[in-house]
């Protein structure tokens, strides 16, 4: 497998003063294509910060991030976010005034390999198809989380960053959502990075577990 993502001694500047030993910060790390990585740590150790760095949202770090051989500083992030890298934000980041279906269309408009029927089937699997026309602001957090999962899965991607994607789901729904994520990632031959508080969240084979602290 080729080195899809390389991290060279990455250290977020806000963590400089309180750095603890970890598998990620200030390490040379290679994330290979098609593999599943789980990042675990307690709250406040920088899981979301790591996700944001990977997704090009934060620049306040030392070290270097290389994606497909290109430095993140010169990367066409618009193209990457539309075609190569997808994300499930911990804080979801949905358009609350839009319906669940419209939120998913925001990604579909940039291109998708899925038909409308397939997308609706995904919603059906996650138990939110009946909420399609409802405004997101009227949904529960768990329901919103499932909308965010579908939105992340419909676009073409080679990397999926999932930041605590099941934090508001019960065990049954977590299992269903994890299965769907696993399926789509396998179909796309995508690298999956999934963060969680504990080690037992993702019920599928992991290639590596990285501890942040």
């Amino acid at each position, binding site marked *: 497998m080729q080195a899809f993502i390389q991290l060279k001694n990455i250290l977020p500047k806000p963590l400089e003063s309180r750095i603890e030993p970890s598998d990620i910060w200030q390490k040379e790390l290679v994330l290979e294509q098609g593999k599943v990585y789980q990042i675990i740590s307690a709250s406040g150790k920088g899981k979301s910060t790591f996700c944001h760095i990977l*997704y090009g*949202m934060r620049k306040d770090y030392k070290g270097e991030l290389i994606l497909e051989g290109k430095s993140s500083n010169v990367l066409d992030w*618009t*193209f*990457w*976010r*539309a*075609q190569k890298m997808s994300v499930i934000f911990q804080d979801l*980041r949905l*358009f609350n*005034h*839009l319906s669940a279906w*419209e939120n998913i*269309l*925001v*990604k*579909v*408009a*940039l291109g998708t390999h899925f038909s409308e029927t397939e997308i609706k089937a995904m919603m059906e699997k996650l138990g939110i198809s009946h909420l399609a026309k409802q405004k997101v602001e009227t949904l529960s957090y768990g329901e919103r989380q499932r909308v965010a999962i579908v939105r992340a899965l419909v*676009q073409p991607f080679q990397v999926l960053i999932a930041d605590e994607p099941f934090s508001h789901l019960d065990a049954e729904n977590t299992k269903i959502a994890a299965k769907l994520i696993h399926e789509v990632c396998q179909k796309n031959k995508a690298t999956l990075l999934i963060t969680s508080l504990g080690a037992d969240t993702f019920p599928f084979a992991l290639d590596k577990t990285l501890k942040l602290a």
Partner: protein
Amino acid sequence: MKQKIFRHTLGRKNSWSVLAFSALSFILGMVALLFALQFYVDVKTAFTPQKDEEKLSYLIVSKEIGLMNTLTGARANFSTLELEDIKTKDFIHRVGDFKTNQFEVWTTGNHLFPIKTELFFESVPTDMLDVQSDLWRWKEGDVQVPVLLSKDFLSLYNFGYALVRGLPQVPASMATLAPAFQTEIYSAKGKKSIQLKLVGFTERIPSILVPAEFMDWANKELGSAETAQPSRLLLEVKDPANPDLIRFLQEKNYVVRQDAIEAAKVVETARWLLSILGAVGVLFMLLSAVLMLTQTQNLMLKVQAEIKLLLLLGYAVRDILLYLWSRFVLGMIVYTLLALGVFIYFYPKLLAVLAEKGLALTLNLSMMPYLVSLAFLAFSLLWGYASIRWQIKQQQ
């Protein structure tokens, strides 16, 4: 589909009050600009009508006649040096000499103007006259001599002499049809009989003008052979209100016909007023532009979270920019059309009100206000583009 997404995500937060205020500020600015510019054009045309402008471009100057001239009989002539000096000034386009007769003239009139009087003649270069006539030519041997009379003289005759003497008043058109004046010119050197044929009336030069060819010939035949220095000059100037010209004439103590100076002062004052009007127009434009920018920023601030999220989800700056700017352009065009409508409807009403107050201005069709408004629109569109782009980039 992207357009639909943009409409749903970014278009929703357009508050009508903000939009209305934004529209109002732009329309008011544009209307004010159009009014100021059209008013400028109309006032300018009213203050510098073609005829006056032509008249003002010729100034008759002489030297001040003092007591010494009366006592010694010395003529207040321009010396060669003074003439050379005047000719070097760049605010004076051309200098024409007045030549005077060095002999005596006695006319016995005709049946229409039964006057017997002594006369004087002056001549100026033909191409500096305001009257063009085919009859204005003379060559040696011609008995008939064309003459141009100041229009003021005809008025003096009609409203002074003719009334007092109970003679009929004569309109200018008839006067030129009258038979020639039987006239004698004479001096110690001899006497000649000529016929003066009135060919027109001049408004530019208050004198009795004959062709320079006749003057030269008669002065040679009857006058002293030496060439006299001119005592009056006809200056062709580009701008009679030019402060350098006025200063020069004052410094040299040259006398200019008062009405020319007064007219120049009026034009100068009008120029000041017009500059103020122009400045007001520009001020309105700038205020309007600032208001527009503020309003655009206000609208952008309302959707900055949505823009940020769209960028995070993989939307290109270019696409968002084009969507927001195209709406901006559409708005601007609608506002501009509205402003034009207001201007075209209300401007003639303003002129009507001013006419009632005693300031009669005519609407002059000029492209200038429209072109400036168009430039303002283009500037606003570019400014809008830059402003929207900058604000989107801020969210990256």
